[in-house]
């Protein structure tokens, strides 16, 4: 059958390029391998030439795959499943890239491109290390390109082809629509990009993160090359800039993800210990550990084995995290992982292909790796670098252990242990944040202290008096600052008891210490020479990140608490504290108190060409005298799907130097209500009250203050012979302002009972005084809230204080690390200068 209107050429070119990339990287891998193992120099050279061509061709091919896919997405060729799934015609052009890497195939492609770029740089710069290092990188390219094949080999589907046509997809093959040649005329639009990914962070976060992922292979490759070629020490010199580069970029990528999570509030903050976040944090921690032991080795000869171990483990955990997030194994514990593409087996092979040879080589040649038998001094820098790396390792182990719960379940199942011991299926801790925090906080304390102290130590040994003298000023200064912060009320977090607060105080000191000591070190010991102070700058940043995390999370506050409902219903219930009522209703035009502010919902608006609805919320802050000292308007917005009344919300925030105020919409009334005629079907509810009793309604409560014998109500005109009483009602809304109401009950002509209601327009409240019950000394009040025509939003507002300390810390840390990269590259180039500099080399 000939189908009408399909554009098959870009897909065919793309698929051909994908296969070419696979074949070319296979050639590169084999040729580089031969270039290492062959004994004769000329043969090695010719293998190397072939390998280079292979790698070069695969790089071009990967780029071609990328271009074809982009071309298809750009032109909205919905005959391709990838385009249909991830784009729609109204998708703003800047998000086309986000849709390119929103699926597994696209993100592998991104990773593969970065691998190619790094590979080409390595070919040009790594000289004698080229062949063994590039063998490893080409192998990873081979694995990566196999993920994009989508070919059946021996009945097993290898990879997933991004150029698959919609009609070829397994689930669509029997669909009748694809039996007609002009099926494309029925497909007018694509499925569209996941709304949470339509965010500018999602355009830049994935490329940076995957550059980080890709660069993690380089230290692995160098360490592997060193052991493989039995040059056990030479690789530690070229590896350092690469390790630092990986730390900087992966760290930046992770924190960009955190910034996205923060701004879109998809995780309820910047860090939630979600398995997806953990999976990329662990390799970063291990790489940091590896770089530090590598420095210790270069200066003293200690810790070579642990350096190899950390570099290996850092990349292995990258592969493991790839497996976790892409195999679907996290399904029940994270919403943010990819769906299963049926490639779990292939991902396991990917992991095994690097893990098994690396571990095997390390064990087989453990005796050949040089070890220094002299013991380190307790006052030496290398000793504490080593201790710090082990702390990082513990941190990594703890995070991995909990994140891997779904894997443990699978393993226990596999070996039949679960049946044997009658075990329940394990689930992640119910309070995951605290589970991680209560362990990690102690490790952070140690790391903070080490970051502050260790650089004041020298390699090999430090005279104790010198150390004490140098540490005196930073220690005292940090203590003073810490106490000042505590007494100023900067940290007060008692949700988990005094013990945890104590830990927070300790961490506060440790992080302040890390920042202060490093700043002073740059000034006093490095004489402000920025070029050589990269490490110290990075350490200042690291301290600031921890400090910012501590300050912002210990004082994060939800200000949109619905205190009214807490009062009325469940203040005495045991879970009322945990289940704080964090959503508040803002009726149109009624100011509602939130923290120090009054917020008013003043309407919504739609901009042409924008699918979002913008809600206008005015904030006002008054001083004690009632003068408005601050006023601003926020526009939290949401994609509103009117058919299903579903909404995907984007927060709006007010940024200050010292805090951010987030506002976002959690619910709106069904949209059709706005156009429907107001139907006043709400019923009166009766309340029997005595003097002093209160009546609750949705937006507040009222108190019966007493009976007025001479009632005044604008709807009531007294007549001779009336027997009239009014009920004095004080109405309190969610704001602190209150109103008075006086419904009237009267008997006219000694026979007819009337009740004259009183109304409160802004709250759409109608109140009736309908009966007197003399026997019980009570009266009956009927309350009606005409709500069907009212307009409102349900929103949540959160204050994050001092979050900018964290973001600034990230920037400082990245800049510092990059300065260190440049410094190391220069050191490696100029050998004369290097030896001179190595004498006074700093961490």
């Amino acid at each position, binding site marked *: 059958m000939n189908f009408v209107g399909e554009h098959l050429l870009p897909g065919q070119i793309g698929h051909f390029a994908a296969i070419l990339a696979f074949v070319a990287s296979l050639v590169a891998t084999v040729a580089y391998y031969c270039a290492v193992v062959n004994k004769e120099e000329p043969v090695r050279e010719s293998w190397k030439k072939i390998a280079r061509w292979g790698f070069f061709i695969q790089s071009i091919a990967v780029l071609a795959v990328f271009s074809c896919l982009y071309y298809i997405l750009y032109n909205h060729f919905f005959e391709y499943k990838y385009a249909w799934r991830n784009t729609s015609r109204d998708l703003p052009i800047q998000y086309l890239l986000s849709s390119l890497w929103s699926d597994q195939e696209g993100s592998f492609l991104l990773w593969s491109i970065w691998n190619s770029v790094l590979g080409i740089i390595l070919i040009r710069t790594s000289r004698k290390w080229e062949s063994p290092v590039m063998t490893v990188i080409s192998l990873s390219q081979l694995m990566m390109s196999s993920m994009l094949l989508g070919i059946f080999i021996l009945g097993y589907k290898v990879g997933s082809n991004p150029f698959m046509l919609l009609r070829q997809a397994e689930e669509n093959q029997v669909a*009748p629509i694809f039996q007609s040649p002009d099926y494309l005329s029925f497909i007018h639009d694509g499925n569209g990009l996941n709304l949470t990914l339509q965010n500018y962070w999602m355009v830049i976060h994935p490329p940076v993160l995957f550059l980080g992922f890709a660069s993690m292979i380089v230290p692995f490759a160098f360490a592997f090359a060193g052991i493989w070629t039995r040059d056990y020490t030479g690789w530690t010199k070229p590896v350092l800039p690469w390790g630092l580069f990986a730390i900087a970029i992966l760290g930046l990528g992770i924190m960009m993800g955190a910034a996205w999570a923060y701004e879109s509030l998809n995780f309820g903050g910047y860090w939630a210990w979600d398995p997806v976040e953990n999976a990329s944090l662990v390799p970063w921690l291990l790489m940091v550990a590896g770089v530090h032991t590598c420095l210790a080795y270069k200066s003293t000869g200690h810790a070579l084995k642990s350096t190899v171990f950390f570099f290996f483990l850092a990349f292995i955990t990258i592969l493991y995290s790839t497996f976790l997030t892409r195999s679907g194994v996290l399904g029940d514990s994270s919403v943010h992982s990819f769906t299963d593409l049926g490639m779990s087996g292939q991902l396991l092979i990917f992991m095994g292909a690097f893990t098994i040879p690396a571990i095997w080589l390390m064990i087989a040649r453990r005796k050949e790796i040089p070890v220094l038998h002299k013991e380190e001094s307790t006052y030496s820098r290398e000793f504490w670098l080593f201790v710090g790396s082990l702390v990082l390792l513990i941190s990594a182990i703890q995070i991995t252990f909990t994140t891997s719960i779904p894997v443990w379940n699978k393993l226990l199942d596999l070996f039949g242990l679960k049946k044997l011991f009658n075990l329940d299926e394990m689930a992640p*801790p119910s*309070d995951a944040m605290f589970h991680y925090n209560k362990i990690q906080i102690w490790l952070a304390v140690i790391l903070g202290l080490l970051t502050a102290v260790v650089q004041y130590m020298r390699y090999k040994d430090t005279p104790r008096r010198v150390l004490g003298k140098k540490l005196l000023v930073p220690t005292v200064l940090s203590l003073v600052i810490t106490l000042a912060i505590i007494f100023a009320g900067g940290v007060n977090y008692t949700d988990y008891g005094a013990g945890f607060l104590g830990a927070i105080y300790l961490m506060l000191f440790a992080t302040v210490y890390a920042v202060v000591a490093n700043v002073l070190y740059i000034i006093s010991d490095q004489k402000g020479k920025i070029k050589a102070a990269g490490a110290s700058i990075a350490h200042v940043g690291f301290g600031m990140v921890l400090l910012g995390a501590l300050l912002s999370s210990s004082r994060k506050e939800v200000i949109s608490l619905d205190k009214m409902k807490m009062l009325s219903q469940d203040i005495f219930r045991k879970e009322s504290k945990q289940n704080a009522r*964090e959503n508040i209703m803002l009726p149109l035009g009624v100011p509602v108190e939130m923290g120090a502010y009054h917020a008013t919902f003043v309407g919504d608006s739609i901009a042409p060409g924008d699918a979002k609805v913008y809600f206008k919320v005015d904030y006002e802050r008054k001083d004690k005298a009632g003068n408005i000292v601050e006023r601003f308007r926020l526009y939290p917005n949401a994609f509103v799907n009117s058919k299903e009344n579903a909404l995907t919300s984007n927060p709006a925030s007010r940024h200050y130097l010292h805090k951010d105020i987030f506002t976002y919409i959690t619910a709106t009334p069904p949209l059709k209500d706005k156009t429907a005629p107001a139907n006043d079907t709400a019923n009166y509810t009766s309340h029997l009250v005595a003097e002093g009793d209160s009546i609750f309604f*949705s937006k507040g409560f009222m108190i019966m203050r007493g009976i007025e014998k001479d009632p005044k109500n604008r709807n009531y005109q007294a007549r001779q012979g009336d027997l009239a009483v009014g009920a004095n009602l004080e109405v309190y809304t969610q704001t602190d302002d209150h109103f008075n109401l006086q419904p009237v009950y009267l008997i006219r002509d000694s026979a007819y009972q009337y009740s004259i209601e009183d109304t409160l327009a802004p709250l759409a409240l109608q109140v009736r005084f309908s009966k007197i019950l003399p026997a019980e000394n009570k009266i009956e009040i009927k309350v009606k809230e005409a709500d069907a025509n009212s307009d409102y939003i349900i929103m949540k507002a959160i204050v994050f204080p001092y979050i900018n300390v964290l973001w600034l810390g990230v920037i400082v840390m990245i800049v510092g690390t990059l300065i260190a990269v440049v410094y190391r590259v220069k050191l490696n180039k100029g050998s004369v200068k290097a030896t001179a500099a190595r004498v006074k080399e700093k961490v």
Partner: protein
Amino acid sequence: MKKTNIILLVVIAVAIGVIITMVGDFSTYETFATARQKEGKEFHVIGTLDTLQTMTYDPLKDANFFSFYVKDKKGETRKVVFNGAKPTDFEKAESVVLTGMMDGNDFHCSKILMKCPSKYKNDQVVLGKTEPANKPL
């Protein structure tokens, strides 16, 4: 014995200690029946939405009260109460993972994790609508 070795031993001991305390934190996947037996402790319950019974979320009355019915893996249906706003697209959830505890006959949950059907599986449904029923093949 070298100091490094001692440190290593300490680290291993700490790591083992940490891991043991961690396992105590782990929750388990339960059904409503087993969660009821251990009332007062938090569990994870996996189930599907019972769409035949009503879902209640009336923000005008209370913006932080959402109740719905869930059928667990054993087929038992329970009312679930969540103190918060109704999550977007909740009706579409294929299955839900609830974190919380039994309280009387209701399950009070503090966290809801929804598993929405991947966009893949809807392909047929969505496209099928545009297809005239009696199209000649």
